[in-house]
């Protein structure tokens, strides 16, 4: 039961984006379409799961004074792997995510989970935590990406879903739309929490 809880807490209750407001840069930057959102979410999930496994395995070997640089090196290695794999097999998504793939290194969600969870728990729990948090991050990206793509282009996953007479709100896919959609969603989460 508690293992299941480790897995599902990242979806809603401790959602890294909406509740903890971590990893805002990639969240806003890559959500102009759902495809990009899924690509980014899964890349971050991969890094999160593997860095959690690795850090949980070596947690007793690292002196606590240099643990943060050590974690960053572990994370950066997995980010490099993701970067190269995506470059080889998913060149289109790799191109549109561009700068933000190497920047997964400084995504506070990953370092945050390494420090707060993987360095204190065993491997199995760390895997579940990483997977849950990663999927929660992906979920948040897809929600924001979905809203922006539907409003801004009248499409979802590249398929027209609104009638042709719909005039796309271009602003939703531009930079200001990202901030405004995010702000309104955070407001809604706060409202829900209070009830």
């Amino acid at each position, binding site marked *: 039961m508690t293992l299941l809880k480790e897995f599902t807490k990242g979806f809603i209750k401790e959602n890294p984006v909406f509740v903890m*407001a971590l990893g*805002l*840069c*990639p969240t*806003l*930057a890559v959500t102009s379409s759902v495809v990009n959102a899924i690509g980014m979410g899964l890349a971050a999930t991969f890094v999160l799961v593997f860095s959690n496994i690795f850090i949980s395995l070596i947690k007793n070997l690292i002196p606590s004074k240099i643990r943060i*640089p050590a974690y*960053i*090196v572990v994370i*950066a*290695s997995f*980010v*490099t792997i993701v*970067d*190269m794999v995506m470059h080889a097999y998913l060149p289109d998504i790799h191109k549109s995510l561009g*700068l933000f793939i*190497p*920047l997964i*290194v*400084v*995504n*506070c969600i990953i*370092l945050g989970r390494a420090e707060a969870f993987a360095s204190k728990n065993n491997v199995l729990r760390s895997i579940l935590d990483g997977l849950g948090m990663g999927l929660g991050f992906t979920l948040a990206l897809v929600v924001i990406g979905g809203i922006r793509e539907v409003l801004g282009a009248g499409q979802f996953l590249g398929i027209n879903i609104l009638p042709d007479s719909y005039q796309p709100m271009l*602003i939703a896919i*531009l*930079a*200001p*739309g*990202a*901030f*405004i959609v*995010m*702000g*309104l969603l*955070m*407001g*809604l989460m*706060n*409202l829900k929490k*209070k009830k």
Partner: protein
Amino acid sequence: MEFVGKILFMAVMAIFVQNFVLMRFLGLCPYIGVSKKLDSAIGMGMAVIFVMTMASTFTWLIHTYLLVPLHIEFLQTIAFILTIASLVQLVEMVIQKTAPALYKSLGVFLPLITTNCAVLGVAILNIQSEYNFIFAILNGLFAGIGFTLVLILMAGIRERLERAELPVSMKGMPISMIVAGSMALAFLGFSGLKF
């Protein structure tokens, strides 16, 4: 003359048209986190300008004279993040020794800069855009100025927001996002600039 023109063009591009925070979504965490008070926003801004300029210098040198000759460009992400982390540490020690007063006022923000994705972002962008040494340094400087500019503007707005009457669930983060959205909308106007 052409050289001066190029530099001016670059300054306008980096500070206004492609502003790191509002248009590229880099460095959002400190932008939202440290913009509550004007004083701390100025301190953070100055530290970021300094570190971004230094990071651009050193990462360019490391890329050109170490990674490229050895054909290990794929280690870019790891090499850059380590460079930035040690640079921040070095800057912290130097400032502590030479200017204790400045160190005290920056104190908390200095270590935070390592995980500011704007710093790693500018380092990678310099390499991707194939700037030469001088332009890489200048790009770091201008990007830092752009970051500081919006950080200070945001701090000014938020000091007033404290006293504004808002729905409870929109207080704090959500309204900051909406304000950032409106600022991004204003900055979008600069993209009409033609040279």
